């Protein structure tokens, strides 16, 4: 079934000013839909992590929210730089965050593992020089 709700949020590299606004809007949309609290909480955590990942690690990209009566879907697609070793990046505690990001309290290396833990379906594909796509699903029914 095609998504009834489809919303795209451009997220720019190192834009800490607006960081968190996309995930805040996503939360607001889901609350108005009356998505169950347990799902809402997991989407909140994952959407914030994935948005901050775009700000901290990517060269910018787009976060997309799709909702069908069956599931909430979050897709993050960036324009680079791509992850050389995805398995390594998925390990807890592993991070390439910059000094700036770390000084702001990010870069603990929990982002990707946290997303995976909170999503019902998690898919990541990456190609160096092209970019990374993260696709997460949260079942509603």
């Amino acid at each position, binding site marked *: 079934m095609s998504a*009834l*709700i489809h*919303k795209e949020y451009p997220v720019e590299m190192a834009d800490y000013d607006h960081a*968190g606004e996309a*995930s*805040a809007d996503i*939360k607001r*949309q889901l*609350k*108005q*839909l*009356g*998505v169950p*609290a*347990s799902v*809402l*909480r997991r989407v*909140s*955590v994952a959407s*914030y992590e994935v948005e901050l990942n775009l700000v901290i690690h990517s060269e910018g990209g787009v976060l997309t929210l799709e*909702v*069908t*009566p069956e599931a909430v879907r979050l897709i993050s697609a960036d324009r680079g730089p791509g992850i050389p070793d995805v398995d390594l990046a998925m390990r807890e505690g592993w991070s390439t965050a910059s000094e700036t990001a770390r000084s702001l309290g990010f870069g603990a290396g929990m982002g990707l593992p*946290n997303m995976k833990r909170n999503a019902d379906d998690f898919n990541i594909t990456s190609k160096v020089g092209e970019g990374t796509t993260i696709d997460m699903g949260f079942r*509603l029914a």
Partner: protein
Amino acid sequence: MDSKPRYHSVRLDKELCKGCTNCLMHCPTEAIRVRKGRAHILDERCIDCGECIRICDYHAKVAITDSLEDIKLFPYKIALPAPSLYGQFRGVADVGVILAALKRLGFDDVFEVARGADVVARAISEKLREPSLPRPLISSACPTVVRLIQVRFPDLIPHIVDVRQPMEVAAQIARAEFCKAHDCRPEQVGVFFITPCPAKMTAIASPLGQRTSAVTSAISMMEIYGHLRPLISKIQAEEKLHPSSTSYGIGWATSSGETQSIFQENALSVDGIQNCIRVLEEIENNKLSDLTFFEGNACTGGCVGGPLTFENNYVAKNSIRKLVAAARARCDSTPQQSVTAAELNKYATRMDKPIEPNTAMKLDDNLTVAMQKLQRMNEIIADLPGYDCGSCGSPTCRSFAEDIVLGYANEMECIHKMRDKLQTMAEQMVELAQTRR
């Protein structure tokens, strides 16, 4: 959606309302609309924070509380002063004086809510030892914050510590001790909370996490102040009452008092409802899971900043600080030392009813229909100017779109859309006139 009427202490005085947009713009749950030149409070969304009472220049927003006359309905009456009352009298260095003056207003006994806070502090300390509970635990003391969570952060309900409010525990102890000492029945005793805010009044009439409230009703601190002020100077040394709470219990009058009474290193004390919202957003994003406790007070400075207090909240905060220091110099025992395990178990400190999410923000009970409405709403928003001017009677363009989708408003109530439409029509008329010539 819940259709049964909800009790609210915060009401509108229709005669005084001018239909301006001040309250509209300051409501944290978007619970106010201006329609036909008057404000309307949406019952399902109102959390009785009293922000509208504070902001209204015309005094059209009021808080319903009992008056001092109402205590006469009971053969025996007990006053339960909130600790914030102690901060209302500049230069009074002794809580015992305030308690004695309060008793003179016609009460048979006075029992400090600060003592209830001591018992609650010990109960929370016990809860913090349970490792299975989510972190941070969220204080249940401010009823406005609890209702804010029900409306805007339903997914954080499991974080709320299931311990009753200090006034509830105080009411139980006060009534039980009075009945024992005076050999009377509980129903003969009216227990009246002296309240700094409308939210506590609402929490008595419509309890949170409890089937029933042990408190009979609430009397506004503002009303009590006028009667109490002249009596304070008349209290002789021998008439003074002995405070029963610890210095920590008194500290609950101001923001961070609760956190100090449970000795948490890694805790946040946040005051002001917009600040609470910001931090709750972060808790929701799991950014604060290293904290053990979150104390949120809807009012600036904590309860001393309540809409029904008289004294400037910063002055009151300073008075409380001095009273706490003086009390601590006399006795530095903590709530955990002062409240015995027997005392803790004697009274009901745990909630006996779950706190339910409030679904007033939901567009529809049916998810598919809600999605259709949200989709339509997003389309409407894209077409609105985004000034959030409030002229349509809804607080933001977003909420206006929501009202249109729910059938409470129509697009032409936006004066900017209307102006554009008139402009187009005018241009068309000019064109029409020119073609005829």
